């Protein structure tokens, strides 16, 4: 682009900015004591137009520079063919090395010097999202079914535990499999009507499903307690040994069992390891099931449903198992959430939660286990660190998503490891 074209381009951008800024910045309401008065501040409009003019000039110059560099690297690549995508390479290395590294770090975290109550608590939240991300990854990443209502299964798991505990006195470990089972049942319930839908249509129905579940929880006062939620959910005990300074009669407290001083952090550390264990089970399960026929059928279904049918794969059953198993892990996470919080209400299961979990999966790179950990850490820690900028949280969130979609539509660490490799003859 030559100089004249650049200035023209920037002038056009400035004009658009001025038109937009005129109603947005150009007028302000002022308190005149009586009715509201209007003051004009056209200088603001001018500043905005000027800022856009300069910004556009710089931006376009940078874009040109970047294009030049792309061309250079393309010329280089022409000399040196077969250079694979760098980020995909990193993804490959990440899945092999980063994940074990992260797991190792997660195991020792509570004993590190800086790990106080806040850090462990935060890490627990991160792990909940990691687990939800891994669970949703089965539905979205493997089976290719866009699910915008995943939080519904999380809610089902949480309420299952809360209600079972309240009415039947179930402990955490007894309620965990049942919560998973109920969530899986809801997964199948959602799966049936959406079997024929794909892409956008599926997304809309799943979004609706998530809202239906939340609204039922909100309105079915007799059972769920409505907006007040359910409180006083039993806190977890260490396999029957409660975490408490003065345990109920006839029970040994955890600190007495180990013969150590009572500290309120014990329970927090225990909860941390509990969710770590659950998340690891999810990860192991996913890695394993990918290599089984049903996992391969999910991926095949994502690639081409018609071809699947022609090969005799039952698409109905395959989709329903994906929904059920994905939902099951959501239910497990929900069960954990209920026991950790001790209080649940429909407030915790809004659409934004679904959006965040989906963002974690998409941002991390569909199918990449390490990528999901990275994205979950990013999306839960950043808002915590930038608490002062809470106003801009959604703005930054949206910006990050747009940037990722432009820069890496396949996610941060997109890499697909084959589920089986051909060994040379006689090697097996």
């Amino acid at each position, binding site marked *: 682009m030559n100089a004249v074209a650049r200035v023209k381009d920037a002038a056009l951008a400035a004009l658009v900015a001025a038109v937009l800024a005129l109603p947005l910045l150009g007028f302000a309401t002022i308190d005149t004591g009586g009715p509201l008065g209007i003051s004009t501040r056209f200088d603001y409009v001018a500043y905005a137009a000027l800022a856009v003019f300069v910004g556009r000039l710089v931006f376009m110059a940078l874009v040109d520079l970047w294009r030049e560099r792309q061309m250079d690297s393309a010329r280089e690549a022409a000399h040196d063919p077969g250079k694979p995508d760098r980020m995909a390479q990193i993804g490959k290395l990440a899945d092999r090395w980063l994940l074990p590294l992260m797991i190792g770090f997660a195991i020792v975290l509570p004993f590190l010097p800086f790990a106080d109550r806040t850090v462990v608590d935060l890490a627990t939240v991160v792990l909940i999202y990691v687990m939800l991300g891994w669970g949703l990854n089965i539905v979205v990443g493997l089976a290719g079914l866009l699910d915008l209502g995943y939080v519904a299964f999380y809610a089902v798991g949480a309420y299952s535990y809360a209600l079972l505990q309240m009415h039947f006195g179930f402990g955490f470990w007894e309620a965990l499999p049942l919560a998973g089972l109920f969530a899986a049942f809801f997964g199948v319930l959602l799966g049936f009507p959406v079997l024929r839908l794909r892409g956008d249509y599926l997304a809309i129905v799943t979004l609706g499903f998530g809202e239906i579940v939340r609204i039922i929880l909100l309105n079915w006062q007799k059972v769920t307690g409505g907006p007040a939620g359910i409180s006083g959910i039993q806190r977890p005990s260490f396999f029957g040994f409660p975490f408490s300074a003065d345990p109920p009669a006839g029970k040994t407290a955890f600190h007495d069992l180990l013969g150590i001083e009572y500290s309120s952090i014990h329970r927090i550390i225990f909860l941390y390891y509990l969710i770590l264990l659950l998340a690891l089970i999810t990860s192991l399960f996913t890695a394993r099931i990918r290599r089984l026929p049903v996992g391969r*059928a999910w991926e095949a279904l994502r690639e081409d449903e018609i071809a699947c049918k022609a090969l005799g794969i039952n698409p109905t059953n395959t989709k329903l198992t994906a929904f059920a198993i994905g939902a099951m892990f959501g239910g497990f996470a929900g069960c954990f959430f209920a026991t950790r919080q001790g209080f649940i209400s429909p407030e915790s299961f809004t659409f934004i939660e679904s959006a965040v979990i989906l963002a974690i999966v998409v941002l991390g790179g569909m199918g990449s286990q390490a990528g999901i950990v990275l994205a979950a850490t990013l999306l839960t820690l950043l808002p915590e660190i930038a608490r002062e900028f809470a106003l801009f949280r959604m703005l930054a969130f949206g910006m990050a998503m747009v940037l990722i979609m432009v820069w890496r539509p396949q996610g941060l660490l997109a890499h697909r490891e084959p589920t*089986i490799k051909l060994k040379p003859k006689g090697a097996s």
Partner: protein
Amino acid sequence: MNAPLLQVEHLTMRFGGLVAVDDVSFSAAPRQITAIIGPNGAGKTTVFNCIAGFYKPSVGRLALRRDSRQYLLERMQGHHIAHHARVARTFQNIRLFAKMTVLENLIVAQHNRLMLASGYTALGLFGWPAYRRAERDAVEKARYWLDRIDLTGVADMPAASLPYGGQRRLEIARAMCTDPVLLCLDEPAAGLNPRESHELNELLIFIRDSHDCGLLLIEHDMGVVMQISDHIVVLDYGRKISDGSPQKVRNDPAVIRAYLGDEEDGAGYKSGGAS
């Protein structure tokens, strides 16, 4: 020709007011290559879609005989046709699992047997030995076909990275991994160069002769059709206009009329058509 493999009787397929296939009857014999030819829009692919269960025919019976059992395809669901009646198909526009590797494509094709061996996932999760054996067998079968279609070297590459000819061959191999008794090929030679087309002929003849498999073939490339077909069915505007051996069909005036046009249709029409 005793006991045909597939017997199509009075097959009619209507889409609203449009009659795509009109009262077509023919049969395909086991261990034979039956070609369906015809000008564009003659209804060939519609016939295929009815056989493979993607469409439910408006009228007609499609009877497939396997191991002295009869399967009425028009009453079965698409995936049951592939699973129980053992009819496999390929597509006009290739439908591979693009992001999965070549080997995975062939393993997915053996889904139903592996699913059973993995105890519907429950046993497979714990590394059940019978499942591991079944998976090894599946890999061996895949290796057999990879050697056959000359793709062993790229077995761990994504299927999308193969050149066009390789993708065509892989799709045929994938269909063969389901152990079909009838293999339906929708324009397998489309877009192939003469050498690849020749290799394809050899592959199809190999499948016919050594895998006890009947082949049903839609093809525009007359070179392929005339060389390898045992039996040809000609469709035009949804109706069958000729049926018989390649020699018979080649000299059938009705076929010549369909491809080259009538004498009265205008002299200029004669120069075009099939070659």
